[in-house]
């Protein structure tokens, strides 16, 4: 039983979901992937403790994004990101990747495997965990490699909560406009986000879906717009 990904053995998989029925269904899928499911009935401890226990006791985590009630005091995206920083492979499953993208976006850099609940299968779980391991070994898949990219600000909605801005990334898809939370930009640079302004950021522009894009290392030209 188990997967071998680039020399890393994965067998014990913790399942995080506040819905007992969903946990049970996921356990079947995990078993079909030749992995050992370990559903967690909660309530979960603080995020830091949760991550250190997961790192110690399991090989990987599969996590739903929306965790309600007393089950957890954090959401799945936060958990997946912290697990990534601790080099523990995880897959984030959600039906809410589009609806919750403004909240999730800041964590995407640390979430190699974000899959829709409809796409969960033994194959997508195995390939999702493999994507994490590849990143830990500094060998990301093409769609997760970040490149310095020109971004053009189309409009700003600073009165919204949270404040948002809209950008075009012609090096990725010139026809699509991407909505981003202003909080994604370092606080000392936010005042420079204005319609028509061009800046650079490192973006994984090999990604196919807008929800999968992450933005890091913002850089503003000094010469002209």
């Amino acid at each position, binding site marked *: 039983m188990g997967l071998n990904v680039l020399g890393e053995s994965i067998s014990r998989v913790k399942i995080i979901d506040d819905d007992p029925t969903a946990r049970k269904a996921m356990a079947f899928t995990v078993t079909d992937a030749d992995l050992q499911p370990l559903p967690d009935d909660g309530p979960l401890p603080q995020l830091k403790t949760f991550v250190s226990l997961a790192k110690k006791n399991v090989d990987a985590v599969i996590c739903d994004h929306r965790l309600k009630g007393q089950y957890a005091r954090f959401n799945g995206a936060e958990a997946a990101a912290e697990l990534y920083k601790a080099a523990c492979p995880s897959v984030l499953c959600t039906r809410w990747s589009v609806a919750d993208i403004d909240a999730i976006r800041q964590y995407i850099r640390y979430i190699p495997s974000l899959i829709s609940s409809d796409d969960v299968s033994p194959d997508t779980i195995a390939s999702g965990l493999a994507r994490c391991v590849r990143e830990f070994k500094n060998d990301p898949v*093409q769609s997760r490699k970040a490149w*310095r990219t020109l971004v053009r600000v189309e409009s700003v909605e600073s009165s919204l909560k949270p404040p948002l801005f809209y950008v075009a990334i012609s090096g990725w898809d010139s026809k699509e406009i991407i909505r981003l939370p202003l909080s994604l930009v370092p606080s000392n640079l936010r005042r420079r986000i204005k319609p028509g302004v061009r800046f650079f950021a490192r973006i994984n522009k*090999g990604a196919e879906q807008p929800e999968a894009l992450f933005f890091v290392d913002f850089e503003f030209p000094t010469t002209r717009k």
Partner: protein
Amino acid sequence: MSDPSLAILDVGHGNCAVLIDDRVVVVDAGPGTTLLDFLESEGIKEIEAVLISHADEDHIKGLVSLFESKTVVVRLVRINSDAMKNSPTWNDLTYLLDEANKAGAVRFEVGLTTNQTGDFDTAAVRIEILAPTPGLAAKGPGSHDHKGRRLTSNSMSAVVRLLRNGKPKVLLPGDIDEIGLENLLDAGGDIAAEIAVFPHHGGGVASGNLSSFATSFCRASKAEKLVFSIGRGRYDTPRPEIIAAVLSEIPKVRILCTQLSEHCASQLPTTDPPHLTSKVSRGKELRRCCAGTISLSLAEKEATVFPILTAHAEFIEGAAPSALCMKVGKPSEK
């Protein structure tokens, strides 16, 4: 000394070819980051020249990425002007090239015509520019040719041919259409080549008469191997009428599509095809490759093709039950 090589990259729907000899020359840059990924994986840090056939997004986006990333030194960029284009990508590219040119980081030159034949030659490869003529390039897209036909960006595509010791090896025709091809041939141009990339990814042409265009192209190119640089699920390519006309004109031709067309297989393979080379391919991550990135060793006698043709044929026979290229005999028998 090793033979020069040409990689025709699987960039999805688009075109990009990288000639590697004593110097590196790139013809079209495709969309996305495949060119960047390829250069990184091959350890290429410097490009002598990037030649762009025309300003369509699927040929220039990769150049935007190249200049944004600043990971590779590019000495020269050559492209024809196109006043008809007002796409954000075209605007961003000209912005980036202007900035780089101003900073002395690149020589950005407008004009890629028949007059540039020989300007980009490498040690072993002659690089011909077969179209457009300077006269047509001066008029530009949106104008009319001497027969009064309207010229589009595709009609004005630069057509590049690579020769080894005088022997025509590879034809890279961009998106040239029937008007552009007719102008090229009427001017006495010769597009014969051992291997040709089919124009416009095997998609639609201006007149809509796909069969006659494919027949004219095959008759003039006499190619033994034809590459279709396609993106699965994009624009319905290669069009069955084109493949049928190709096979009718050159029954023995060997067809290599970079990605697996939906015409050939409604489902993708469920396991990673083992025969594909280790070269960077856009379709690899989602198992969309058919031939994937195609590497050619430009030997003097006959170019060697990787992935090897027998393995590619076996893949088609296993994974593409309705393969268009199998309508006239199995690829493995060609």
